[in-house]
């Protein structure tokens, strides 16, 4: 179980985490290649159905990462995103999705190290959880 390579779909804010990820890349911080990045103008734009769809399509985990509270370029998009995450963390586990497959972080533009560390940790955690078998099964 532990030796598969998980796929993490990351919805990241253009103004912070996306830049941090870029920084992590250019500074050659070691970083597993498991993340598929979706660049959003703000985490406030991450509709819950994107996350639901990602999981139903077989993503092993979803990361939403945006600006620290107070730093959102649209004032409070990140706070809205947090409530939506709270909502999904309540709904999806009812259907057996492990809560650890849903992660939210605040990672500022200069925090490349944090980004690398988040991804490393998440990858390890999701590896231990095993694959999301919806990837290969027919979903009604």
């Amino acid at each position: 179980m532990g030796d598969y390579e998980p796929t993490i779909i990351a919805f990241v804010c253009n103004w912070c985490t996306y830049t941090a990820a870029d920084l992590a890349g250019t500074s050659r911080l070691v970083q597993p290649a498991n993340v598929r990045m979706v660049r959003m103008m703000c985490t406030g734009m991450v509709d819950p159905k994107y996350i639901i769809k990602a999981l139903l399509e077989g993503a092993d985990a979803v990361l939403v990462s945006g600006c620290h509270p107070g730093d959102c370029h649209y004032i409070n998009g990140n706070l809205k995103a947090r409530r939506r995450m709270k909502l999904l963390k309540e709904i999806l586990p009812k259907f057996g999705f492990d809560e650890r497959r849903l992660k939210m972080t605040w990672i500022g533009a200069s925090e490349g190290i944090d980004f690398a560390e988040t991804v490393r940790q998440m990858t390890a955690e999701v590896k231990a959880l095993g694959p999301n078998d919806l990837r290969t099964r027919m979903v009604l």
Partner: protein
Amino acid sequence: MSKIGKITVKDRDTVSSLQDFLKLLLQKGAVEAVLVQQRLAINNAVMPALITDIENLGQADPLAPAFALNGARMLSRLTRKPLDAPIAAVMRPCEIRAFVELVKLKQGSVDNVILISADCLGAYPNNDYAKVAGMGAGAESTLSFYRNIISGKGTAAQDADISPACKSCEHPAAVNADITIGLLGTNMEENLLLIANTPKGEKLLADLGVKVEDEPLDGRKSALDALVGERIEYRDRMFARTSEAVSSVEKLMGYLRACVNCHNCRVACPVCYCRECVFTTDVFDHEPAQYLRWAKRRGALKMPTDTVFFHLTRLAHMSAACIGCGQCSNACPNDVPVMELFRTVAHGVQGAFGYGAGASLEDEPPLSVFHEKEFCEVTGGHD
């Protein structure tokens, strides 16, 4: 002690005595129209109607154990722009709670509306109501429903019973109504209580010349507590059973296996608030080639697609606002027990946000407010 007025029931005919009370609303000019369930001449069907002519109130039957649709949607149509004259809406407690949610979403207004609600002892599913109402002509079937309850025979009749949504409803008495018509804690074949819950309600009773007296409501309270207790017990068993039945995606797919994506459950839901549902837009008009790609990836693609996706997304939209009316199940052509599913999830969601859908106009809907310092567990304890 509360200020209580009474409707004296003549000839044990609760329905016509209640009609007389509603007629008074129009006679005294207190309102311009009454939105209320009306018995249609055709096949004993019962539907909400907006009544302006006193004569027509002779067919009003708010107590009929029929619940064709959630009237909150109708009242929202009537109040989405300011009304120039007051109207009264006679609705079930769950219709009022749904309306409260819609008002908070700016899809309706309580200005110039007087909300009246009778204690609700339940209603049959739409398919069964026709059968049950066939028993007697007109309002006779309504009267026999209550007689059976009073005599201890219960609500089951003609192989049918009130819907699971009603059996599991812990709000049989409206809290947000201006006037509650009390059936509990009184002999409803002799008297109905008129309880004013708001200044608007008190004013209405005064305008109608209803005599109010200070009366203790102890009997009513114990009758209500007993009923609520029974329902919560049923509800909690339903929650446990449903949680178990959907505890994995595999099981959820089994639970929804008969769903054909007709979206009736969404149309019937009073709190599915989007003006246009994304699932009916071209976002879901997938490219023909896309279907083939999907099929190839997993070897087979169930069609129509996106069934589980639809229900999970719907839950993300309405679970904070679900008031448990059961109209989703009522509307499903394939008997998917959607009410049980939606209510079970909604209960958890509302608990997580400390919110009670429909409880008050003041509490802000969970997904429309947010604060800087809250739910820091979501981001691993960092805020």
